[in-house]
């Protein structure tokens, strides 16, 4: 992993193989093994967090700002969905079955997996300079023209050129950095702030967010933002070529399956 130079280099530029029996040098992988493994663990735990999170919200689809809030107080907003609790006024004349037991257990277990995987990725990213090499945009990447092009191109359903198969453009880099260093920390923080025991040890974690119910509302909105990211992310993968891009994240090798076989 450490020997793989910048992924922007063409295959020929990589170091010659130590094994003389192999005449052709292996190109550096599009994604390093650790990025691939952590990507799919994160994807799986995110899916578990999403499903269980939705189930938990169904037991009280009302959101408040500040410290407290119950069905007896005015909500900031409410989701127009039925609830799994009889005493929550929803406008629906039926009550959904209670799924909170396993949902909470799955939510916290998946959160452990996601956070530990995230920590591993973070350490790896710093040690191997993955963030600096692959995600921090260059000055040229950050020009308005280049960012605008990256934004408009997919809107016109233009497939990215071959030069984009081995690296990210400025907009992608900024988005990934935002998700990794803003949205993920915020969703973890606001989630932990809702833990009564965690808040007893670190009361500032709640007060800085404006109270327990504010933390819950922030947790909800950051989760919505993460789902939006996931949506655009999958859309872009489809646009660029679902099988080649997904294959690259599984095997590490860029290019279409046809080219490979």
């Amino acid at each position: 992993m450490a020997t793989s130079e910048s992924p922007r280099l063409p295959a020929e530029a990589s170091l010659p193989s130590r094994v003389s029996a192999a005449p052709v040098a292996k190109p550096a992988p599009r994604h390093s093994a650790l990025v691939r493994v952590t990507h799919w663990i994160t994807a799986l735990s995110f899916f578990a967090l999403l499903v269980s999170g939705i189930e938990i919200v169904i037991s009280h689809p009302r959101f408040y700002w500040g410290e407290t809030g119950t069905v007896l107080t005015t909500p900031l907003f409410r989701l127009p969905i039925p609830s799994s609790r009889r005493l929550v006024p929803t406008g629906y004349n039926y009550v959904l079955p209670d799924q909170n037991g396993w949902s909470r257990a799955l939510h916290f277990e998946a959160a452990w997996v996601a956070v530990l995987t995230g920590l591993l990725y973070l350490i790896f990213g710093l040690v191997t300079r993955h963030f600096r090499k692959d995600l921090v945009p260059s000055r040229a990447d950050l020009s308005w023209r280049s960012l605008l092009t990256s934004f408009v191109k997919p809107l016109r359903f233009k497939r990215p050129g071959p030069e984009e198969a081995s690296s990210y453009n400025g907009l992608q880099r900024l988005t990934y950095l935002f998700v990794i260093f803003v949205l993920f920390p915020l969703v973890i923080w606001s989630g932990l702030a809702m833990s009564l025991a965690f808040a007893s040890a670190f009361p500032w974690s709640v007060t800085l967010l404006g109270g327990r119910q504010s933390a819950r509302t922030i947790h909800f909105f950051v989760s919505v933002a993460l789902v939006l990211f996931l949506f655009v992310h999958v859309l872009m993968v489809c646009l660029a070529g679902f099988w080649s891009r997904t294959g690259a994240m599984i095997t590490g090798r860029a290019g279409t399956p046809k080219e490979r076989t």
Partner: protein
Amino acid sequence: MINLSRRKLIVSGLATTAGASGLVVAARLAQKYGLIPPDHGGIFGLGETLTYASQRLLTRHSMAREFPRDRISPRPFPNELDPPTGEFKHHQALGFADWRLSVDGMVYQPASFSLADLKGCPSRSYITELACEEGWSYIAEWTGVPLSHVLHLAGAHPQARYVVYTSMEPNTWDSIDMADALHPQTLLCYGMNGSELPVPHGGPLRMRVPRQCGYKSLKFITRLTVTDSLKRFGNGCGSVACQYGYAWYAGI
């Protein structure tokens, strides 16, 4: 063919051995220091154990957040209750004059307290938040006798590890570890916001465990059992709630 050098083989062998023995040592230590919850089995056991162990290490002595008086919620929400049983109605008609709290199990002096006995004990009041696992929460002032005081009066054995508490509601009981049972904010609560604890909020006597979700704060408490193992209680995972899939430890 995988290119496996001798160095790689030795390094990964050593790493695997170190990892495996590290896990064994960690499990032994966790057991010794009470960091394994009773519901550690099953597919969610790993998550429950990680949460319980890490929160216990962080919070053994931490205090639940307290609030100034002006932040008490004007309309505390009592949540849904099953209709009262005949036995409860009988007690209610008598003004709870005959309500008893019995203490048994690993205690030197099994005891039984009337509400008057409990109110004669040194009382504590805390303005804390009751937060339900569903997401809602309110702030109230809770008044009662610290559970630790009652355990002290009955003489809980030093080997005690859990306190099981039983409600008058049919088939309703739960348990907490000694870290929460001896915690100063854990109350056998008989007063709320300066008056008697209302029946919808669990009057005449409710458990208040402010560092865990509301479902651990059982209403209508009639019995405490001190024990060193939860295996003999119900299906052994520490509460009735866990039969419905709810975690025994609800610090999150």
